[in-house]
């Protein structure tokens, strides 16, 4: 579900590319759920899940922040990833 403004054209392609190619994202099995990207309080909020169950939150957060910063640089958009409790089904 998307609320607020339309998702910018460059956001999903950048996320698709990053989540497939970034070493940290690949190593920790990070995936994002494009169905639940929302614009909240000035930031594009993107749900992220990890397929690597034993990773702790610290390791995941470092990776998530790394990918988030790369995504922000590449898209010039304010982006906030947050860890999901459930792995996306798609």
């Amino acid at each position, binding site marked *: 579900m998307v609320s607020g403004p339309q998702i910018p054209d460059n956001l999903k392609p950048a996320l698709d590319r990053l989540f497939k190619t970034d070493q940290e994202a690949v190593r920790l099995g990070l995936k994002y759920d494009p169905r639940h990207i929302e614009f*909240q309080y000035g930031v594009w909020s993107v749900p992220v899940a990890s397929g690597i*169950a034993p990773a702790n939150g610290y390791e995941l957060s470092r990776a998530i922040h790394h990918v988030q910063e790369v995504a922000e640089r590449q898209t010039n958009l304010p982006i906030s990833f947050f860890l999901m409790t459930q792995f996306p089904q798609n």
Partner: protein
Amino acid sequence: MGESSLAAAATLKNQHPRSAVSRYYYSVFCAAHAAVICRGQTLPRNDAGEEINWSHVAIRGLVETNLKTRHPQYSEGVARAYRLNLESVFNFRLRADYAAQPYTVEVDVREAEKIAVPFMRLAKEIVHGVGPANT
């Protein structure tokens, strides 16, 4: 409530580390609310007109915006660092509360404490109008 949660986290961290992580997050969530409210933000309301908490995403953004716009001694980078720290503790908490399989939660406890304690100090300075909040 935030200080109580912080104290509870310290009590729990050795025997019940997952619960401690959860309490660390709740302490910063409360502290962030207190700090933001003290700087003039009004709590959102539900359909019945009752005051409710900001969402986990919203409160992080409000903290960053508040520090950037009202406390010029905090650079944009520092304000962003606080937001990222709040995001981190939230992520730790999700792992602590919901991860089905074992993981090295001790790392998260240590990192959550490193974030929560100074954040509580910052929030108290803002709430009590001393230090950074005076400028």
